[in-house]
């Protein structure tokens, strides 16, 4: 089956920043992403858990964008302003994307 190489960018970010980040992605021409829930975690700013924790309602989400390698730079620039001073982490990895009839027509 045909595939093409792409970058998978996973951004764990504060929920309050979600719509700002998505708007920035949009403006940078990144039209494909998915938002996943995060139940809790730990990092430089300490621990948190969604259910029954003091920070409920101010939790985190994970935004996943699969982009062509040449879009990566634009994505990073767009996201950076919103991530810089906020909690979270951004990872980038290599993936193959399966070409479906629909995808290849894009």
């Amino acid at each position, binding site marked *: 089956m045909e595939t093409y190489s792409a970058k998978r960018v996973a951004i764990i970010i*504060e929920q*309050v*920043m979600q*719509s*700002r980040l998505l708007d920035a992605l949009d403006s940078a021409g990144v039209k494909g992403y998915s938002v996943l829930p995060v139940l809790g975690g730990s990092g430089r*700013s*300490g*621990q948190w858990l*969604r*259910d*029954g*924790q*003091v*920070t*409920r*309602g*101010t939790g985190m989400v994970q935004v996943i964008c699969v982009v062509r390698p040449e879009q990566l730079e634009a994505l990073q620039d767009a996201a950076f302003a919103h991530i*810089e*001073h*906020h909690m979270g982490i951004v990872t980038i990895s290599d993936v193959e994307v399966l070409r479906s009839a629909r995808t290849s027509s894009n």
Partner: protein
Amino acid sequence: MESIFSLAVTNLISPVILSFVLGVVAAAARSDLTVPEAVAKGMSIYLLFAIGFKGGVAVANNGVDAQLVLTLLAGILLSALLPFIAFAVLRTVSSLTRVDAAAVAAHYGSISIVTFVAATSVIDAAGLAAEGFMVAVAATMEAPAILSALWLVSVGPKRSPGEARVDPMLAREILLNGSIVLLLGSFLIGAITGADGLAKIESFIVSPFQGVLCLFLLDMGLVAGRGLTESRGNLSGPVFLFGALMPLIGASAGAAAGLLIGLSTGGMTLLMVLAASSSYIAVPAAMRVALPEARPSIYLTLSLGVTFPFNLTLGIPLYLAVAMALSGGA
């Protein structure tokens, strides 16, 4: 006049407060008892809708007068000015940074709607009534404090990170946040449909109200208890004390305003409660956006872990007793 003491005791051994205590104790014992987030949010929607609707019906029944406008104005002023007092106190007694102190101050200008809800049920239990428009006052007191706090930061020395200003997106998030819209919306629905509307949904929004409040406060107890257990270490002694003293300052300002306007005993109590209470939903979210370098472990722990329990258990009966004394009433 009932003594403060008996009011406090009556309040403390009500199912509502004991449910809160149960939550705090369960959290402190590290039980795994939790209320699912969706259920907690569902209950808060119920409580906001019910309280807004009932306020609207009361206004429909009693009509509107100049007091409404005056009280709204007083609420806005209290919300905008209390942060300055809070900020000054914090910068004097604690070593909090300018940004942290401003963020905390924003919380104390703003309000806790659950404290407000709990207070209405204490007032009810005391056989008093309050002006129906107080829920509208509550809604207007959420935002001004945020502006004051951001102004306090912006006049400080230049900071590199963050924004410390209200862009249009944040303005919309603050002014149209879900709680405000639901509260004002159900207030309007209540005002429009009046007693007829209330009759239709009374057995939903009136009868089970106290019971839902119990379960909601159970959850608040769990959340506050966990916050306090984990983050107490982040609060220095003076900051901790501030969490119990600032409500008294706020309540005094609220009482003064209530006297000037000539509110009823119930209304004055509620204005005191609003001024005394601090936000732990809307303001923290706004602070994360506008002042990301302020520490949630300070402002959230203080507001939810110290001030909220203080108001719920001791504050409300105290404010009620003072309002009774001042209005020479009940």
